[in-house]
């Protein structure tokens, strides 16, 4: 039996070690935001952060995550609150700047790819707080095993939202 940390909580895993993390998160741990898109690391719908780095959970064995920290969009608010040392009261009322930006900019159309898109945005902004349009495009297209694909065509909105999130983060949050 493995223990992994998901969104700040230690979770015991009963699935076999070789099970892709995606199915453990969704089916065993009821963490539902990473989506099954291709099972081939070709689309990014299943992306999660593993110790702050984006991985494709559809092809990554759960054993890879042993002793490490998995973050999904359910854990983004808490991640931001911890980074900003917010009080529990403040934390409960706070969205991650990426989430706030995604709402303000009305990014999702069908939204199926957006969990992965937001994970990618978070990874990008944590390493590069003020990315320009070309850097954003490059992060979503050329970094990682494949580009992050959106069929509804929300790429314009994503770029605007990453820029918007960057300005919120530069102010230390929306408050």
């Amino acid at each position, binding site marked *: 039996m493995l223990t992994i940390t998901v969104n700040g909580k230690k979770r015991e895993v009963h699935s076999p070690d070789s099970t892709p993390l995606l*199915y453990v998160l969704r089916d065993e741990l*009821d963490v539902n935001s990473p989506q099954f898109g291709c099972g081939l690391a070709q689309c990014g719908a299943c992306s999660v952060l593993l110790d702050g780095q984006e991985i494709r959970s559809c092809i990554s064995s759960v054993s890879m995550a042993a002793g490490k920290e998995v973050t999904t969009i359910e854990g983004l608010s808490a991640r931001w609150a911890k980074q900003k040392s917010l009080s529990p009261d403040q934390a409960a009322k706070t969205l991650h700047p990426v989430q706030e930006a995604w709402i303000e900019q*009305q990014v999702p159309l*069908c939204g199926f790819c957006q969990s992965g898109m937001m994970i990618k945005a978070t990874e990008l902004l944590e390493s590069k707080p003020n990315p320009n349009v070309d850097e954003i495009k490059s992060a979503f297209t*050329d970094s990682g095993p494949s580009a992050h694909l959106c069929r*509804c065509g929300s790429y314009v909105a994503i770029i605007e939202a990453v820029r918007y999130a960057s300005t919120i983060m530069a102010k230390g949050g929306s408050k």
Partner: protein
Amino acid sequence: MIDMTQQTADIFGAQLSRRSLMKTGGVLAVGFAFLRGGAARAATETGVNAFDPSMPESWIEIRPDNTVLFRTGKSDFGQGTVYTAYRQIVAEELDMPFSSITTVVVADTDATPDGGGTFDLLGHGMPNIRKAAAYTRQAILQLASDRLGVPKDQLSTSDGIVSGGGKHVAYGDLVKGESLKLTIPVSGDLMSIGGLNVGGNPPLKPVSQYKVIGKSFKNSAVSSKVTGQEAWVTNVKLPGMLHARAIHPATVGSKLVAAGKVDAKRFPNTKVVVKGDLVAVVGPTEWEAIQASYQVAKDTKWTPWKGLPGNAKLFQHLRQDADWKAVPVNKSRESRGDVPAGMQSATKVLTATYELPYMKHAPIGPTVAVADYRPDGTVTVHAHTQNAQALRGQLAMMLGTSPVNVVVKTYAGAGHYGRSNGGNAGAEDEAVLLSKELGKPVRMQWMRNDDMQWSTNSPAAFSDIKIGLNANGKIAAYDADHYMPAGQDDRPIGAILAGLPTMAAPSEKGGWIDSIANGSSDPWLYESTPNLAERFHGTYQVGQKSSPLAVGLRDHSMRTPSQYQQNYPRECAISEAAALAGADPLQFRLDHAKDERLIHVLERLKAESGWQPRPSPQPKATKMGAAVVRGRGVSAMLRGGGYWACAVEIAITPATGAIKVEKYTIAVDVGIIINPEQLTRQVQGGAVMGISEALYEEVAFDEGAITASDWMSYPILKMGEIPEIKVVLVNRPEVGMYAQGSEGANALAAPAITAAVFDATGVPVRRLPLRSAYLKDMLKA
């Protein structure tokens, strides 16, 4: 004034009644009754809607706290319309604030009234929910008149309050302690693609008094999606649920010889289920089911079949072998004049053939459904469908049962742009059959290759177009033959494979939806054309007749269906004709337009894109060399009452065929703009999909099967490839109607980009997609 001791009142043909007084709560519920004699079929099927019209669950509920719930059989596929525009329309017609519309119930067969496919949601300006709200406001006025003792015509409404004669009352106070029902007239067929339609003509709010429509309210579904709270169809988990994977046939004409057996040592809890040619692997966990399905697939034997032309010979097959005589050729209503005489008089003639490949809806998530079949013969299906009632009908037909035994619940999922507007998306019927077989809830999740290879396709098409120009460089005659196989096959694939009842395959005997006939879908824009003939030729789906499964390459409507296939050749040809006339392609369009709205959109496009008039090709056009050459193009269409035009700028390297769309400006007039921000996002998204379709999309298939199986073999546009996109919204409240805001956007890109390639290289390119490898070859030829 109506005496409130009366039990009913007539409200513009609707019936308002008081059923009882209540000690607490209270409600005005809006239900429906079928228009007398209007729809015999519907009337015999009232039992299939779980709604009892006498119950307070229906279209709209006004509650004592002045909040409102409304229900719609339409779902959300990323348009956001049911959560934004519909809310705004209901608020507007009720004369209440947007924030009063607190609850939206969508697309469950047992919880929503009207059914119908999720497309054209603003329905030429008159969605059902608008009329339902308008009736409701009239009922409110009636109730207020009785309560206040003031005649109706002396009352006015604002922000959920009725005022008049120095008195006022909140809507909520009118329903407090009452159980009121408003029954409105409807007609139609609940489980058809169109569903039910609200009838009658209740007074609508004048556009000049709009307060809620026109503002950018946020989509409530966005918040739940970005915080991980959304109830996605993929999240549905039922107690005891089993995970299934399908093993689909080796080709679209293969019959099962023998299903493989599960390696019980590796997969002790998993089993194979076979029903006719439907093979599936079912296990307690998802990963075990996936692994076992790979193992069983390897050992499963199918008969060989070759009945497809392969995509390299597709157009040769369509031209020479397909039967275009099985159904009559349709002519467009706009055909006019004497085309042969017009051609005879022409000084220059363009003759061209344009070819469009099969494309995929290609949702980011493959189709998935959970079915729970009970021993009493009822089944509940959890799905992501554009038409829950039609899916219910299909599943009932497959099971040989009454639709009352089938409930479909609709959840958010990956958008699929038309695939399920007639009911199924792919996995639902298979889930039902397996749940019935195993007596447990079953979750059927197609894998990426299933979704690419066994879902329906946007049909391939080709067109022969001839344009004659007179001595002044104007169109003297336009002659077009459009050829396309049947465009809508709604048969559930699992039912076909299992040999169970389905609707008929598209044929010459079919009706509006399932006929193989082809018809006009692209309204003519260039009104000054004196002589015009457009003919539409239909045929069977490729491979359908020779396939032992009767499937072949199954087609289905996909974003801007049929019009995509007709507008591409027309707009390409118009751009080429402009070049032949030595005219600027945008001015050439303006010179042939008479419709003021079209002219206005083209003028706005011209100004906003910085368009400088000159003919194509551009002076430095070349089809050779390793240097980048640039070009630009324009296109236009009238879609569902909305006027669309775009201008693109591209860069192409002739030696390699490498192409990049650098700038894209799109202008749109959809009449009354309900929500500018949501419309902008739809238009941007459609533009990106359109560029993707133009540059990349083509379904590869060989002589037996679709070979495109993933995102490598069916590539779509990546973020790094998008151009600078500028959206120009033209608000026309004076036209007094709404029009759909997303479908046109995807169809515009391809003809404009194709024209831009011609502008840059001087070579007319007449097929899609514009992949670099194809462009390189076409420029060499």
